[in-house]
């Protein structure tokens, strides 16, 4: 048991790294580019992490801290050491399983999906690197190391989005993803710096202890919280940095499932959950509103998208916004719970989408699809299962987590009142929208008549390597895995394990809900629970019903409605014009100023240098003239004078040695007087 928590996490961490290195350097020599190796290792890893979770359930938290490097004893910080280490707590143990599970499923799925690709081997090595980085991110006990892995998953994301870099769109999408993430990361980095400068250590436990001891409080704490949250905004694609995620769908679909739906984008949520206990009331308010705004905006955009992956992408953003919001309102464990359930059903959705795309020979536009249910039954049923889960239909895992979150928002509004009432309103609205657009997607894709006969004819069910992961993920979307009670997960193993921690700031700041003692919040939550459940059921039902009205029974003509509210429709279709806005402002500004500074450098700064050179040369020309005429004139004049004197003194040059001696003597006499007198 000891070994399981002490060494196994390191093994789990390093197995994907091993897989990456082997594939990167020896992939060419292995049969099939080593995909079997990577996949097998990942399944082994899944088993190990399941074991860790099991052990953790029995033994509890474990932390290992090693000195990474130190800066000696100095006058500013005293003994300054940086640590590297990992910890196993509930969040980590669960995340390990989630990451490994989805990663191994995606590996399996990719074996067929990516078959025949020129960079097949590279693909699997990238997956290995990503899994390594993601596991590192969840395992570490240190916020600096977390930043390290944070950037590394960003790199993998960059590489995998741009996997088909021969085409323009993936290149641009990859670049955009990385740069937008960087913007968030700068904030994250600044946040880390604040922690470092005030607390002097970057280990989570030290940070928490420091905050508890009041080393960091008030406005600085809020600022630190918001800055750290900036990282999450970037990585979890929250408003206003959400623009990269839809574009990231240019990557291979299994990658979208792994990175851009289930794991990496959830890292932001994981981060917020990690630092939840030190977030101040104001920071949490910001987080809540960012989350809910994101959820709402992306849900509205998802309504009108026609690319199957884009719809899923916006729904991912929307769900991430949900999680963020959940943590913001103080429903820490529910937010995290939603992260896990969402990881499974969203991975399922993406993989089914991958299956559809595979079956349809790389068609992604849902207007080309339709009636696929008959051709691809397994894909359809797994998709249906996941759709039900995301829509929050009872008996699914999604219902459990979403319902709990909605209840929390109600409790939140109940405690705080005022403007915060918007939060539950928007949250419930988003729930309805989600149900609507997911069923719209389902109906248009799988039901009804095929729109593109030719494609339809060639369509086929995917092979077992692809359907097996789908089935597994669909099964994991059942409520039973998390709780035996289909209506509430409160007493399921998950929520028993992931308990909401008491904020370290309890009782110190303001009168916000989460600063209330935990019991009080839970009481409010309890009150809200029944209301929330009924409301959410009604609203999702309405959403589903409307979707059927529009697209299945076609009682209402969607196109006509779109025509009727054209501006709104376009607004949604064009994603609220965020890309255009950023292009016109930030990007254009940067490019402009870059061009300008390039010009300034070449023309002005260097111009001054060259100008001074030219000036010097000009001066030198004139000084040359001056020299020739004036200075040299003086010289010549001197020469002339000397010559004239010479003519006079020539007389003295008699050529007679005696004369010279006489002068010598005269000179001596003169010198005598000179020295004597002066």
């Amino acid at each position, binding site marked *: 048991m000891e070994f399981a928590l002490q060494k196994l996490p390191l093994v789990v961490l390093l197995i994907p790294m091993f897989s990456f290195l082997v594939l990167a350097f020896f992939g060419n020599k292995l049969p099939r580019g080593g995909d079997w190796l990577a996949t097998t290792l990942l399944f082994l890893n899944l088993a190990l992490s399941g074991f860790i979770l099991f052990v953790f359930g029995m033994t509890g938290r474990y932390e290992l801290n090693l000195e990474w490097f130190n800066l000696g004893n100095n*006058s500013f910080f005293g003994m300054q050491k940086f640590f590297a280490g990992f910890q196993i707590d509930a969040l980590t143990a669960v995340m390990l399983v989630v990451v490994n599970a989805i990663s191994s499923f995606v590996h399996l799925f990719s074996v067929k999906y990516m078959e025949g690709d020129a960079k097949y081997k590279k693909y699997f090595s990238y997956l290995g690197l990503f899994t390594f980085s993601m596991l590192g991110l969840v395992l570490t006990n240190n916020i600096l190391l977390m930043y390290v892995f944070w950037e590394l998953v960003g790199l993998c994301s960059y590489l995998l989005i741009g996997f088909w870099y021969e085409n323009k769109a993936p290149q641009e999408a990859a670049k955009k993803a990385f740069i937008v993430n960087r913007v968030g990361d700068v904030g994250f980095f600044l946040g880390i710096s604040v922690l470092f400068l005030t607390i002097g250590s970057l280990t989570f436990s030290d940070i928490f202890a420091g905050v508890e001891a009041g080393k960091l409080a008030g406005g600085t704490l809020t600022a630190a919280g918001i800055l750290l949250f900036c990282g999450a905004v970037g990585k979890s694609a929250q408003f206003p940095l959400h623009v990269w995620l839809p574009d990231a769908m240019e990557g291979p679909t299994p990658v979208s499932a792994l990175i851009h739906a289930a794991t990496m984008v959830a890292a932001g949520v994981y981060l917020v959950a990690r630092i939840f206990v030190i977030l101040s009331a104001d920071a949490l308010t910001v987080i809540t509103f960012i989350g809910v705004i994101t959820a709402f905006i992306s849900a509205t955009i998802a309504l009108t998208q026609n690319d199957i992956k884009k719809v899923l992408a916006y729904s991912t953003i929307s769900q991430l916004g949900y999680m963020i919001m959940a943590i913001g309102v103080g429903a820490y464990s529910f937010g995290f719970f939603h992260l896990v359930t969402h990881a499974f059903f969203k991975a399922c959705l993406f993989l089914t989408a991958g299956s559809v795309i595979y079956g349809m020979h790389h068609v992604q536009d849902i207007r080309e699809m339709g009636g696929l249910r008959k051709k691809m039954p397994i894909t359809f049923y797994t998709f249906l299962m996941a759709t039900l889960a995301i829509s929050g239909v009872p008996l699914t895992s999604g219902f459990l987590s979403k319902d709990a979150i909605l209840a929390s928002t109600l409790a939140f509004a109940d405690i705080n009142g005022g403007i915060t009432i918007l939060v539950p309103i928007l949250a419930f609205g988003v729930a309805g929208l989600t149900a609507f657009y997911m069923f719209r997607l389902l109906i248009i894709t799988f039901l009804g008549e095929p729109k593109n006969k030719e494609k339809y004819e060639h369509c086929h069910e995917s092979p077992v390597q692809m359907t097996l992961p789908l089935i597994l993920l669909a099964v994991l979307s059942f409520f039973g895995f998390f709780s035996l009670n289909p209506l509430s997960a409160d007493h399921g193993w998950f929520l028993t394990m992931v308990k909401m921690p008491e904020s370290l700031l309890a009782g110190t700041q303001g009168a916000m809900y989460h600063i209330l003692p935990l019991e009080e919040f839970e009481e409010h939550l309890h009150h809200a629970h029944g209301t929330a459940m009924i409301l959410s059921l009604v609203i999702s039902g309405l959403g589903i019903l409307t979707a059927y009205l529009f697209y299945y029974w076609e009682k209402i003509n969607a196109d006509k409605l779109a025509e009727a509210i054209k501006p709104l429709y376009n607004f949604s279709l064009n994603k609220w014009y965020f890309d255009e806005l950023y292009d016109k402002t930030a990007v254009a500004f940067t490019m402009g100023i870059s061009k300008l500074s390039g010009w300034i450098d070449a023309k002005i700064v260097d111009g001054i240098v060259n100008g001074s050179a030219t000036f010097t040369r000009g001066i030198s020309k004139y000084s040359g003239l001056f020299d020739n005429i004036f200075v040299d004139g003086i010289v010549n004049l001197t020469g002339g004078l000397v010559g004239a004197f010479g003519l006079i003194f020539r007389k003295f040059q008699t050529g007679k040695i005696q004369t010279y001696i006489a002068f010598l003597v005269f000179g001596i006499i003169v010198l005598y007087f000179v020295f004597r007198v002066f």
Partner: protein
Amino acid sequence: MIEFKLLGIGILSWMTFLPVLGMIVLLFMPRSAEKYIKYVAVGFTALLVVLAAVMLSVYDPSKAGVNTLSGFQFVEKLTWIDIPAYLWDGRIKIEYFLGVDGISFPMVLLTALISFIGAIVSFSIKRNEKGYYVMYLFLVTGMMGAFVALDFFLFFVFWEIMLLPMYFLIGIWGGERREYAAIKFFLYTFFGSAFILLVMIGLYFSSKDPETGLHTFNMITLMDPRTIPADSLLGALNVTWRLIAFVSLFIGFAIKVPAFPFHTWLPDAHVEAPTAISVILAGVLLKMGTYGMLRISWSIFPDGARYFMVPIAIIAAINVIYGALCAMAQKDFKKLIAYSSISHMGYVMLGMASLTTIGINGAIFQMFNHGTITAVLFTSVGVIYDRAHTRGLNDFGGLANKMPKYFAVLMVAFFASIGLPGLSAFISETFVFLGGFKNEFIRTVAIISTLGIILNAAYILWTIQRLFFGTLPEKWNELTDINPRELISTVPLLIIVIALGIFPSYMLNLMTTSVNTLVNFIWGIN
């Protein structure tokens, strides 16, 4: 004070003058042996690496150095010039004084390493190899000497020695506008040297060695406030003169760094210089500026460093952001890397301006990392230029599939250069910023310069896209992948970059003691 001798000569003298020995060997090589010239040159630089490794194994990281003679290692101290007193002046005594501490030792390692790499990269030189390598080895002597000299006069001699071969290397073996670039480089740096010389002489006449009563050039003695009587020209009472001297020194070194607005020689010199010389220029030469600041400006004029830290930080921030913006505007690959150097040297200056332990540690570490990373980048530019004879970024595309190994090498280097965690530059940049934030006077400047992180990523990614992504233009169908020689000159550096990214302590341990001492000295804490 550790001494370490080989054959009766101190190891630092070996390090410094081994290239001169190599020069002599090369000069006497017969015409028939011309094809072995490059191997001899590589052999001598390889010996430098071996010696550096020996030094590394002997080096004691617990010794501080900086302003205490006993803390220096591998010290060699001989009388070099000793002119007896004349009517008009006292005795002139200049020492041949070498030694390393935690500030210079990383630079010595870097110089040895980059010289070796540069010699391998130089294989692509085809014209007048003998002359080239003779100059090259001479250049190495100048650089190494400047890093190990502890006597200001000796330092200045090496500093100037290095100019001459550089001038010829750019001016003879360079690109189309080589004369222009060479003259610009030479004059600009010379202009800077004049400032340094002024201060050097001023210091000399202000100083009075407390032990011997003579004027002195000994840097360590000069750091001792007792050496400069308070009423002398640069004494503690003449605050204005001291500040002027600091600014003057700063300008002299800033030209080498190069700091805005003295940076324009760099893109020209880089673009025109042959690949190996660019490697040396960016890898080692630029560090001489920042090293000089730490070793001389910061240590001899700590008051000036404290007084001017905000302006210096602002210049650093301009370097970071302006350099990155200019890089983004470039269409020439090499020029882009040159501007990125300007941007990265801005980090170094920012770290130094912070006057905090963590910042200066970061600055020195960044100097080392920038040396290794930029060496790879410039080598890579050379790789593509040798094959395609153009550096226009817009001429390329889709090289990733055509040159996969090259792609891999360059990707690591590029991501290292934008400070990706796990690679060495991340640690140094982080330290620089932490240092900047720690110093409350320059905090705002440091926060603004974090913009550089984003801009760096932007232009590097754009470069990757333009070079590697997309489809390969027809005309490049004949391009071959990076060859083993070029791999030898890049991969070891990348291994160092990765290794230091994961285990930075190997480098940090070498310098922390010295940096702590330096910072304490600057703030007057004992």
